[in-house]
């Protein structure tokens, strides 16, 4: 639980994004059912729930990853602030959306290129090729991902030679380099050992001052440790959403309580 200070009134908290009556279909199969959920600015929101509950599907709506595969369909909208853009709008280019919201995946997936080129890639796709700019941005991003001290002397080495935890921090640096407004984490520590997991969680704590974070996690302790808000999902429905300590210690819904206390799931 992020803070012990009195909780601000939700109505006054600025939102970074908000899902409104969001439905999502894989072909004929409905994976998300009428989800409405705010994502507060520069806060960490955790999505929890058993496998198949739709939490990753929901996350991947935000950067339009579903557009990459045929047969997927969205209904409803995700408003993105401050410009009140509907991320799912038919007239909104998914590439533009992906430039504003960066994603970190379940398994570290560095490109088989150098550490430098991995971090610089987001800038390269935007047409930034000036060496001095890239060098500065790469350093800044690696520092932001708490990886700079470990790799500063070997930026030209292959990224695959890093350890799993370092690779995941590299992927976070890669996501940070182009200064996204929101970071989407899809179970970022599920392939990592406890020590590497702790370092990623520490990093999430540091990042939330600068960027809004939405994180899917299988690990309830992790949700409790890193998030300000928690949403519990089950079979495509949003069951409960609120401040993380409320959801964990004073769940309003019996289903949430059963899942959190381990009686179910």
């Amino acid at each position, binding site marked *: 639980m992020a803070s012990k200070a009195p909780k601000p009134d939700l109505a006054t908290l600025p939102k970074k994004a908000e899902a409104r009556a969001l439905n999502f279909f894989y072909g004929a199969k409905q994976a998300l059912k009428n989800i409405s959920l705010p994502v507060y600015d520069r806060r960490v929101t955790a999505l929890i729930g058993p496998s198949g509950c739709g939490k990753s599907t929901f996350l991947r709506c935000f*950067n339009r*990853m579903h557009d990459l595969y045929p047969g997927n369909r969205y209904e409803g909208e995700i408003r993105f602030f401050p410009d009140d853009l509907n991320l799912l709008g038919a007239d909104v280019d998914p590439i533009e959306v992906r430039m504003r919201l960066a994603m970190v*995946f379940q*398994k570290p*997936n560095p490109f*088989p290129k150098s550490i430098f080129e991995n971090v610089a890639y*987001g800038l390269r*796709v935007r047409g930034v090729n000036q060496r001095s700019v890239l060098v500065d941005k790469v350093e800044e991003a690696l520092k932001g991902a708490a990886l700079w001290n470990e790799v500063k002397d070997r930026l030209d080495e*292959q990224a695959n030679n890093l350890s799993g935890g370092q690779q995941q921090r590299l992927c976070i640096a*890669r996501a940070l380099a182009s200064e996204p407004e929101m970071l989407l984490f899809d179970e970022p520590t599920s392939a990592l050992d406890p020590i590497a997991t702790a370092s990623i969680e520490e990093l999430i704590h540091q990042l939330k001052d600068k960027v809004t974070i939405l994180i899917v996690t299988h690990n309830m302790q992790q949700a409790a440790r890193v998030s300000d808000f928690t949403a519990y999902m089950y079979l495509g429905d949003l069951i409960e959403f609120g401040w993380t300590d409320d959801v964990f210690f004073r769940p309003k819904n019996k289903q949430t309580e059963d899942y959190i206390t381990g009686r179910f799931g």
Partner: protein
Amino acid sequence: MPGAAANFDLAAARATIAAQKKRDLAFAALGLGALSVCFATFVALFVDMVIDGSGRLSSDFFSNFASRRPEQAGILAAWVGTLVVMVVTAAVAVPVGVASGIYLEEYAPRNKLTALIEININNLAGVPSIVYGLLALGMFVHTFGLGASVLTAGLTLGLLILPIVIVSTREAIRAVPGMIREAAYALGATRWQMVRHHVLPYSMPGILTGVIIGLSRAIGETAPIVTIGAVTFIAFLPPAPVTAAAPFVSFEWLMSPFTAMPIQIFNWTSRPETAFQQNASAAALVLVVMTLAMNALAIWLRFRLRRNLKW
């Protein structure tokens, strides 16, 4: 045995394991036998060729044109012809094949038309090469008026190996993991940026291997180039591609008549004199070495380029 379950029959289990291990051994022996037959056949052919032909291998053999006197006959026109035809073949098959493979894997919608095209490409790989020769005779030689030229041969063999290049390109592309693609897309890459920066470089070892396998098939093809009317006796080389006068490059060599290694070999084999048979063996040896060298190049390239590819 202390601690063993009462209903576990150890003797029976051991008998089953022993019986299964015998089957394992039997298959290993069978496999080794099959491999030995293949390998022994190749070694026998190769040794026979070396015995018959190695006496003829000399620098004159490579620098002389064909001749009525077997001891003066050489393979100059043939190896130069094969080389220039291979250059044209690669120039045709690589861009067309790689572009087709990328389109089918990354761009084409998954519908019936695409499925039909895919089936046809796989079938094309099995069409007898003489059919390509007949197609080329009708289309390139007569309709387009290209004659029995280096260009015609290159286009024909290019078509012939196109399915090989397309299929190996697609397989190489499919080996690039989806999570690498998603990583690139998630950073805002367009499809072409993703292909150009990731898919193409990471699948290059596989694509090159396919290209070289295709070329090493084309290098030995005889039927299609006989069909288009390649000459069997030729005493000049195609004009040089570089000239002394401006514009310094010439493409006349593309329209030049030519002969090729397999045609030269076939021609010598059909002569009654044993001396010509020896020439044929020597030329065949050269052709086999050319093919092996290409395969060695493929293996080396694959090894070099794959060193940094891990996911």
